[in-house]
């Protein structure tokens, strides 16, 4: 176990990543995007309420709107960044011809995989952590509980870990970074768009056959369990809506997919001497 904690791959990967120009450029852009979203949501919420409905704006409404907007924006942005960091991690070793050096050292395939995985995830977690002040902002307005923040962060981290594992699997099976990255983006696209469209089709069909029924049952929602945004729907502060969302099913799905991708990537890595 100690070998996985003091893994030289992690130090090497982090050192290399933090030397890249994007290591400071991406957090800057990321925070600018999130800040822009916060400002837009704030003005949109207050302006809409004030001018269109003519009611006094409630602090809790602003807090919830900002919180949801930041949580959803950051998972979308991080889903776009995840494949960049993970799907090139092993292919770059092939392209640079450095993989043979790793495979003939005393590092095992799981150690190499773990080093790559932790380094990919840690960078995304750095971005996530850098946005915590923005996520804490809604507490000043109210309407958001600390548990919501924990749930949002936990769900996002689990989803990103799975995406990183999928990215590493793509990286293990392809020879070129560009192919691995494209494949990983295709998988992310399937998980976000295709699952949502599938759910929409199933739901409309189900509504036709069950007029007046309340909320879609679990089997109709099944495609959404694979959607990274789905568990975050529980953060919407409407009890009626919340009762129809099954976040734990989604968490289990992502944990399972992540473990499967990890196992397949390690297996492939063990045999990658044949690709050199």
């Amino acid at each position, binding site marked *: 176990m100690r070998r996985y904690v003091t893994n030289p*791959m992690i130090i*090497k990967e982090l*050192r290399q990543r933090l030397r*890249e120009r994007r290591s400071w450029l991406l957090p800057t852009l990321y925070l600018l995007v999130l800040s822009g979203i916060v400002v837009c949501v704030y003005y949109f919420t207050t302006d809409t309420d004030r001018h269109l409905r003519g009611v006094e704006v409630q602090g809790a409404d602003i807090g919830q709107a900002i919180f949801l907007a930041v949580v959803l924006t950051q998972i979308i942005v991080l889903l776009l960044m995840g494949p960049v960091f993970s799907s090139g991690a092993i292919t770059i070793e092939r392209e640079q*011809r450095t993989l043979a050096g790793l495979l003939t050292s005393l590092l095992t395939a799981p150690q190499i995989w773990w080093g790559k995985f932790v380094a990919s995830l840690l960078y995304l977690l750095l971005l996530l952590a850098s946005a915590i002040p923005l996520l804490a902002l809604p507490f000043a307005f109210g309407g958001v509980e600390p548990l919501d923040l924990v749930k949002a962060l936990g769900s996002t981290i689990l989803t990103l870990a799975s995406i990183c594992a999928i990215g590493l699997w793509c990286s293990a099976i392809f020879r070129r970074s560009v192919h691995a990255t494209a494949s990983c983006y295709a998988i992310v696209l399937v998980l976000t768009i295709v699952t949502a469209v599938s759910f929409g089709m199933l739901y409309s069909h189900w509504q036709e056959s069950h007029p007046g029924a309340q909320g879609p049952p679990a089997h109709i929602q099944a495609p959404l369990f694979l959607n990274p945004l789905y568990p975050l729907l529980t953060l919407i502060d409407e009890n009626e809506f919340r009762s129809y969302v099954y976040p734990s099913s989604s968490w289990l799905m992502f944990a399972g997919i992540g473990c499967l991708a990890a196992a397949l990537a390690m297996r492939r890595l063990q045999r990658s*001497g044949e690709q050199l």
Partner: protein
Amino acid sequence: MIEIDALHKSFRKSRGLDGFSLHLENNELVGLVGPNGAGKTTLIKILATLLPADSGSVRVSGHDVSTAPAAVRAALGYLPDVAGIYQDMRIGEFLEFFADAFRLKEPRRTAAIEKALERAGLAERRQDFVEHLSLGWRQRLHLSKILLHEPKLLLLDEPATGLDPLARIQLREQLRRLHAEGVAILISSHILSDLEDICTRIVFIAEGKNVHEAQAPAPVLGAPAAIVRCELEFEGSAEVLDRVLTDFPGARVLERNDGFLLFELPGASRDASACLGKLLAAGITILHFDARGPGLEERYRRAFGDRTS
């Protein structure tokens, strides 16, 4: 150090190794020679635990490569034909990473890194980025890297490719030093003159099979040969010299200058010795005499003459 028996390895469309066998002792520096596609790299990759063999037995330092790959990796250092390098790392960091990858513990770790830097001649440049090194320096760094854990065996696949003459000379000297330190070396190369210079034995391979095995030629009057080429600088009568040569049927003069003669004798080194004796007996003053059997190039031509790569 290496025991390979009846090794087979096939790929989808081709056969990599077809019953190849090799035994390499602890104190040997063996050159692996063969045309492109002969199976040299496949063999080295199997030894380095990168490729699984289809059948046959492969043991390195007493450990089976398929059942004890970690023990094999601990016993060997592998330099691939195109060895990549982490451009964005400093030289010191590069060696530190591989010292950790080979699980070296302090104080051995620090000592190994210092020794590697010294061996590569990069002790003063440990803070430099690897990308600033020339190909020759990179190769030296690679060689030092694979020696970090003090392996007993080195597997070198085309280590001199792309190096300039000076870097090649330095590489040869380094390999000679390592061999003198007791490291067994298996080196694959197309640069026959380099192999001829440093190897204690040459192994020929073609189409995945052993082709021919012979002693690497000794510098002077060494290995038995069908033709011995003699270089002679002398003082004395050229006619007397010609008369002596007529005693050796088949002797052929290749080049003649004032006081210099290059000729070929059929036979082996003992025939060259006999010729030298007769020249001395005939009163010729010998300033320089050098007789060589067929070089590695000639032996290569004999072994693979009709094969195209």
